[in-house]
């Protein structure tokens, strides 16, 4: 099966596999919900449902629907679509990975510094702009944001060592 797909013009994971993966994911989620709601009481007390009643049945619904989706995806062997080409997935992960790094950095170096790095990296990597323009936008946008949020609207956002060093 895999070979046939690779034989096509551009390779990539099969759509069917991803469908199966999604159905398994929703089923696992359903099980977590069901276990969680059984802990707080899933039955009907005298004066109406208890805390876990509705989530419990919601969980059962998700589980049921996931199983149907799973079986449908599994049996649909005629589906030979690709989910996406590796090339496309590469482009998608070129956004996801830097953003993941960004999100992980925010608690440590604050949102302003992290944003400058993200914007700069993105512009240099994808846009291939020259440094002067990259620096202008990468530093300018967080700076304007800082003024608008911290000074103007008094909304505190996460700050890191640089901001503390500067006394904010």
């Amino acid at each position, binding site marked *: 099966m895999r070979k046939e797909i690779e034989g096509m013009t551009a390779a990539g994971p099969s759509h069917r596999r*991803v469908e199966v993966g*999604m159905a398994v994911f929703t089923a696992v*989620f*359903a099980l*977590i*919900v069901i276990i*969680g*709601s059984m*802990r*707080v009481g899933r039955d009907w007390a*005298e*004066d*109406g*449902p*208890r*805390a*876990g009643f*509705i*989530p419990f049945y*919601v*969980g059962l*619904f*998700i589980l049921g*629907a*996931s199983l149907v*989706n799973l079986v*449908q995806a599994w049996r649909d062997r005629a589906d030979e679509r690709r989910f*996406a080409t590796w090339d*496309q*997935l590469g*482009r*998608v992960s*070129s*956004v*996801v990975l830097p*953003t*993941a790094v*960004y*999100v*992980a950095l*925010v*608690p440590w170096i604050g*949102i302003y510094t992290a*944003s400058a790095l*993200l*914007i700069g*990296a*993105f*512009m240099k990597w*994808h*846009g291939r702009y020259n440094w002067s323009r990259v620096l202008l*936008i990468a530093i300018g*946008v967080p700076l304007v*944001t800082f003024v*608008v*949020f911290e000074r103007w*609207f008094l*909304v*505190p956002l*996460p700050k890191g060592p640089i901001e503390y060093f500067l006394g904010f």
Partner: protein
Amino acid sequence: MEEIANLFHGFAVVIEPFNLMLMLVGILLGVIIGVLPGLGGANGVAILLPLTFSMSPTSAIIMLSCIYWGALFGGAITSILFNIPGEPWSVATTFDGHPMAQKGRAGEALTAAFTSSFVGALFAVIMITLVAPLVAAFALRFGPAEKFGVYFLAFCSFIGMSKEPAFKTVAAMMIGFALAAVGLDQMTGQLRLTFGSEYLLTGFDFLIAVIGLFGIGEILLTMEEGLSFKGRTAVISPRVVLETWAELPRYWITSLRSCIIGCWMGVTPAGATPASFMSYGLAKRMSKTGHKFGTGEIEGVVAPETAAHAAGTSALLPMLSLGVPGSPTAAVLLGGLLIWGLQPGPMLFVEQKEFVWGLIASMYLGNVAGLLVVLTCVPLFAAILRIPFSIIAPIILVFCAIGAYTVHNSTFDVMLMLVFGVLGYLMKKCNYPMAPMVLAIVLGDKAEEAFRQSLLTSQGSLSIFWSNGLVGTIMALGLIVLLWPLIQSGWSRVFRPAAA
């Protein structure tokens, strides 16, 4: 007639130069607040509230309510351009608004959205002017069972019409309900589905899910197809406003229906969110081009925007006359009234005439001023799409992160946003519908709360949902709307052969 005289007195108050200036400042600030994720209307009004202490209450409320209008207008901008709804009631605007922008029709979508908002708000203000006491009495009839009926109707008018496979729709919607249930159970005061985690204490906020699913998911889809926005070729000229206006009167039935739905939802404190979803759902069912909804139909922008703003505006009525805020922003305004020493409630209309009618007059003028301001900016907003993707994409990511952070001031939510983003990408690719999931996240816990309050009232008997004419009618309406496709096909099966 006394109302009309009072209203003109109100206009005289608003038209003072100082108040007019406050109005403009308010609108501009409001638009900025509405555009920046993380600064919703409630947030903005709350932040600026203390600044107004040194003004007279009338001037203060004029400025604050103009911030409110500005934020309502501004919310539509990011929904249409970037698929990022900043407020729950802008979600339905993305369904057709964003596809329009992708087709290069951003200017038309924005014009339609702004104009519809204006029409909705105007309709609501006229209603407030003429029938305020009647409406307040109607709002009082809504107990828990009636409230549940309204949520039920909202769900019914929205589901059963998605093109996606039925079981995927069920899975997506139920996942939304499950996510809405996480956190503190309002009815028993117990924590549920948190598994002892401090982070899950607050539950899954709608805004984080939506920024991830819609906003980040959209960027990922765009990346997959190449490095550019589809809407770059948009024709940007001020003439687009007039051309769109020429087209809008065609949808007068949708507008009228949406106005009525909006006013109803705003007065019964169900709010603007169910109003926008319900109105979109009904428009899709009743429109001749309903099957094309979701691909960039202008009617699909008109319906939710009109209803949301009619609701947002009429929500101020229960606030003034009953002291019950119909929206978070109204809640903050309510706090403002108390701080200025004004007691909201039935007596406000009698004792504080100048204030009340000044406010109502500012609703008229504020809306007109707001519409003029945002319409002149339409070409400017649409031009944002011309900024190269490699510059605008990281900036959008940054603003999404700020938006997610400000919900609970938690960096955990920023991570959650990215997870929802990847999930949104996978769901879209695998044909899982996101709209029912978001609807369930937004309204799920409220619907559950109303359901359980009703059952507490009736001590566990389900008969409470048809115990009086009002709740019975709402529930029956819900069922009719839910089963409408079946009814329709049954009708044609019985009558068509005879006609042929």
